């Protein structure tokens, strides 16, 4: 599939898919849509975050986090209450970890589309290739080990509990640096890939990643790993930030013209509806 390389002023859209059933339109888009890879990565991102929320909050029920101040019998009881959920939920987590790759690639793509040096996209990609480790894998491994070895010394189970939550909440450096790289790229960019306010929101998100560091020290209060500041406020900021960038990435893909200059704006509403329909049918 060859893509037009020249700069255009109108957003590039695929020729209209042939009329017919949604299956034939889907097949047509799958084979011919010039943005099919971008849309694929975007949908992977949407599905991943949905699954992430459902798995961590409802299936494994390891979030919102329990208290770091619990004694060993309470912790072992907590594991036995969640035994099946942890095994099933983290089993799926291990399966979907690979979804991080196209997601992070799309985020790096947004930086490659900017007028800034390629260094930003490469730095982001490298640092975010680590993100799944502190962001979910270490916790999933520790929790699964504790759930699968209930006969071990309860002190060891308690140790795994601390290890899981501290690795999850206390290691936000990767996300902080990633947010800052993205922020600087957005503020320097002249192609208007993202609005500048999103750059400033990235700064807010990066600053909240610093705030979780005291979770290593405290067992109770606002700064513990389940605290109002270290967890609840951070979670609100993170969810808002994630929601915002998913929407903005969608807009970026709609506006993408595969050129090198400023991204064109979306056409007016009436025209947009038409091109949206063509974009969305996949």
């Amino acid at each position, binding site marked *: 599939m060859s893509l037009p390389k020249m700069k255009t002023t109108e957003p590039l859209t695929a020729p209209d898919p042939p009329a017919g059933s949604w299956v034939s339109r889907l097949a047509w888009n799958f084979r011919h849509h010039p943005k099919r890879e971008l849309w694929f990565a975007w949908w992977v991102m949407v599905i991943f975050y949905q699954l992430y929320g459902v798995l961590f909050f409802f299936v494994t029920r390891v979030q919102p986090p329990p208290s770091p101040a619990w004694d060993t019998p309470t912790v072992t009881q907590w594991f036995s209450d969640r035994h099946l959920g942890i095994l099933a939920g983290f089993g799926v987590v291990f399966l979907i970890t690979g979804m991080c790759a196209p997601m992070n690639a799309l985020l790096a793509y947004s930086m490659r589309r900017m007028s800034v040096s390629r260094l930003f996209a490469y730095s982001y990609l490298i640092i975010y290739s680590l993100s799944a480790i502190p962001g979910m894998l270490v916790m999933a491994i520790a929790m699964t080990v504790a759930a699968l070895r209930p006969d071990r010394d309860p002190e060891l189970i308690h140790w795994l509990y601390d290890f899981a939550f501290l690795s999850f909440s206390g290691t936000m450096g990767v996300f902080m640096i990633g947010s800052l790289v993205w922020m600087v790229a957005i*503020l320097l960019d002249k192609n208007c890939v993202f609005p500048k306010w999103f750059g400033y*929101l990235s*700064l807010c998100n990066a600053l909240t990643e610093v705030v979780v560091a005291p979770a290593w*020290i405290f067992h109770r*209060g*606002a700064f513990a790993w389940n605290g109002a*500041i270290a967890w609840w*406020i951070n979670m609100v900021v993170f969810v808002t930030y994630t929601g915002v960038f998913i929407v903005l990435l969608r807009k970026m893909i709609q506006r993408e013209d595969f050129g090198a200059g400023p991204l064109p704006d979306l056409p007016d509403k009436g025209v947009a509806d038409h091109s949206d329909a063509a974009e969305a049918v996949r």
Partner: protein
Amino acid sequence: MTNRAGSRPQLEEKLTKFVPGQPDMWMFVLFESLLFTGYFSVYLVSRTQNEELYLQSQAALDLRFGVFNTIALLLSSWAIARCVQASREGAYRSALINAFLTVSFGVVFLTSKVLEWVNEIQMGNTFTSDEFFQHYFFLTSIHCIHVLIGFIGLGVVVYQLWSPVRRSQQLVETGATYWHTVDFLWVLIFALLYVVR
């Protein structure tokens, strides 16, 4: 950092008429205000649960440091406001002097803050001492990080004012808006930590 090269200059011009600097920076002011409202609410709620401890620990703070810091930051805000005004009038030399004055007051603030921390730590009041000092060190540190980021913003302002080929009034005002936010947050932190009893 400019966004003038974009394809939406008309919309931006319209928005710029309402607020000084990039409208986007005002979104940041909104985000930060919401975030700090969260932090302040947690502080005030924790305070109601153990008022005696908070009063006792608050008494260990030196109000003179707090007042001095507040004056230093208010002066820096006054200097950046004069910088914007001078820049609007095309008096770039005066604007530059005021920008440097802002940086100087910021440095005075930071130095005084560090001295205050050292003083508190020497008295045995550390981040882990009690709940009040957790909030005290947290709020003052996160604010200091904002001040440090503000120095980068002021660097952009100075860079813009330095050469006649740059001098984007919008960026000067955007930097000033950020600096005022830092000041505004400090006044609230000062009131909550030092004054509210």
